[in-house]
């Protein structure tokens, strides 16, 4: 955690701040989703409360606080109340492992712009977010309702099915970078596209050195998988309204519902953050290495400390921009594609994406073998 009391305190505060950043992004995302859908469907959307309706979600949150407490009589009390709280944990723990910006050196202290630096970053994120199935299962069983149970089963079967394609597309990433650490991956994606092929150095100066150009198929598979993992349309079979009413959260309302929402949007943010880190250079600014960026700021300000701060700020802004772009895709896709049928969903996961992910692994391994040999 750190060497002395000051550093430990800063690290604890930083963890809470990252968590709160994730929580406060949810109202903005919901607003974006509602306004965006209204824009796509030629409506207005929420526009009364505050400028552009921005305060609408704050008003909703306050309303949620005063909703009536409610417990279905067939339910199991402990599981029913534990589920929404548990739903928060996996997304938060995973999100805190994603690097949000270049580490900041301040005097003798080093502050990371990320919750914690894990040297087995990918494995940790996968392991922690795998726990998300429990919140769904607890909610489904704790409500004591057939629809909830069926929705929970569907959701967890869907999540675990797409975890396979997700895990396999990450094998391609590990082959490419040769590390589990997310920071090292970002460091390898700096500058313009360049790689060595059988001893020849090849430089493509008009493209950034991003993973998406090495792993285009892996990118598509990963992108589709994170939609399924976060139960978003076109994969939101868990809450097919026509068949299951609302899936595993039929019996939930008020603030408990909001906690589930925060968990779901948290998963979206984890998925988008990983997508940006693996395939789009993470917090790195395209075409420029971080060292060159620092040099530019150094020449400009003539102050090493200020340049460090500026590098961190610029990379953080870059990461936020990439994250927002990915999140907008989630919204855009929701209002573009129709929902799958359940057998189509399972077929897509097991019979289409899994073989293609296997093909991606084999092709990547062969390419690296040829290029290095």
């Amino acid at each position, binding site marked *: 955690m750190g060497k002395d009391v000051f550093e430990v305190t800063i690290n604890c505060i930083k*963890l809470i701040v990252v968590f709160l950043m994730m929580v406060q992004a949810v109202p903005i995302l919901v607003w974006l989703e509602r306004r965006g859908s209204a824009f796509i469907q030629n409506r207005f959307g929420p526009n009364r409360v505050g400028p552009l309706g921005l305060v609408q979600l704050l008003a909703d949150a306050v309303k949620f606080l005063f909703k009536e407490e409610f417990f*279905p009589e067939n339910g199991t009390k402990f599981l029913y109340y534990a589920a929404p709280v548990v739903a928060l944990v996996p997304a938060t*723990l995973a999100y805190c492992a994603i690097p949000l910006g270049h580490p900041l050196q301040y005097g003798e202290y080093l502050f990371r712009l990320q919750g914690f630096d894990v040297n087995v970053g990918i494995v940790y994120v996968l392991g922690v977010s795998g726990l998300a199935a429990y919140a769904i299962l607890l909610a489904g069983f704790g409500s004591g309702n057939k629809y909830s149970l069926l929705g929970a089963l569907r959701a967890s079967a869907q999540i675990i099915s797409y975890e396979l394609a997700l895990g396999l597309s990450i094998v391609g990433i590990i082959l490419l970078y*040769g590390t589990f650490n997310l920071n*090292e991956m970002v460091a390898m994606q700096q500058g313009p596209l360049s790689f060595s092929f059988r001893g020849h150095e090849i430089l493509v100066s008009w493209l950034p050195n991003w993973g998406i150009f090495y792993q285009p198929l892996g990118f598509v598979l990963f992108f589709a998988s994170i939609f399924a993992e976060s139960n978003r349309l076109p994969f939101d079979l868990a809450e097919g309204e026509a068949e299951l009413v609302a899936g595993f959260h039929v*019996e939930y309302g008020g603030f408990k519902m909001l906690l589930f929402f925060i968990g779901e949007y948290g998963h979206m943010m984890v998925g988008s953050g990983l997508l940006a880190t693996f395939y789009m250079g993470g917090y790195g600014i395209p075409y420029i290495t971080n060292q060159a960026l620092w040099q530019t700021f150094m020449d400009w300000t003539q102050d090493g400390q200020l340049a460090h701060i500026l590098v961190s700020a610029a990379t953080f802004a870059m990461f936020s921009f990439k994250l927002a772009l990915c999140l907008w895709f989630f919204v855009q896709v929701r209002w573009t594609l129709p929902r799958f049928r359940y057998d189509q969903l399972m077929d897509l996961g097991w019979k289409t994406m899994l073989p293609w992910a296997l093909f991606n692994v084999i092709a990547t391994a062969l390419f690296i073998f040829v290029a290095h040999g």
Partner: protein
Amino acid sequence: MPQLIPATINSGLPLAGVLFLATFVLLFGSFLLFLASKLGTRKYDPVKYQSYECGIPAQEKKDTKISVKFYLTAILFIVFDIEIIFMYPWARTFKEFIDSGNGLYILASMGFFLFVFIFGLFWEVKSKALEWD
């Protein structure tokens, strides 16, 4: 010449931070639920507390028929998940093996494993274990 510090200093896994954050999040969620339960109004009505059943009175919950496909999916998931986990250390050390001149060896060892993996997947598809209806 001054340098920008490198982005990575291998620091293991800060377990204390993870535990702290998990505890904080659990307390945060419980506190909000507690607050909501204190602030909310309460009016008792027996119908309100029945299970939601699209308007008709809830029936007995006995003998809910659940498709065996769900277990089968979960079991097959376990099997394939472990095979994928085995590929992680392989992918991690792949470049080192190539650099030490053992590229063909590591490729062949994973080739056999992948052959078994693909054979299993092919068999599952062929035996219609993955069909949903």
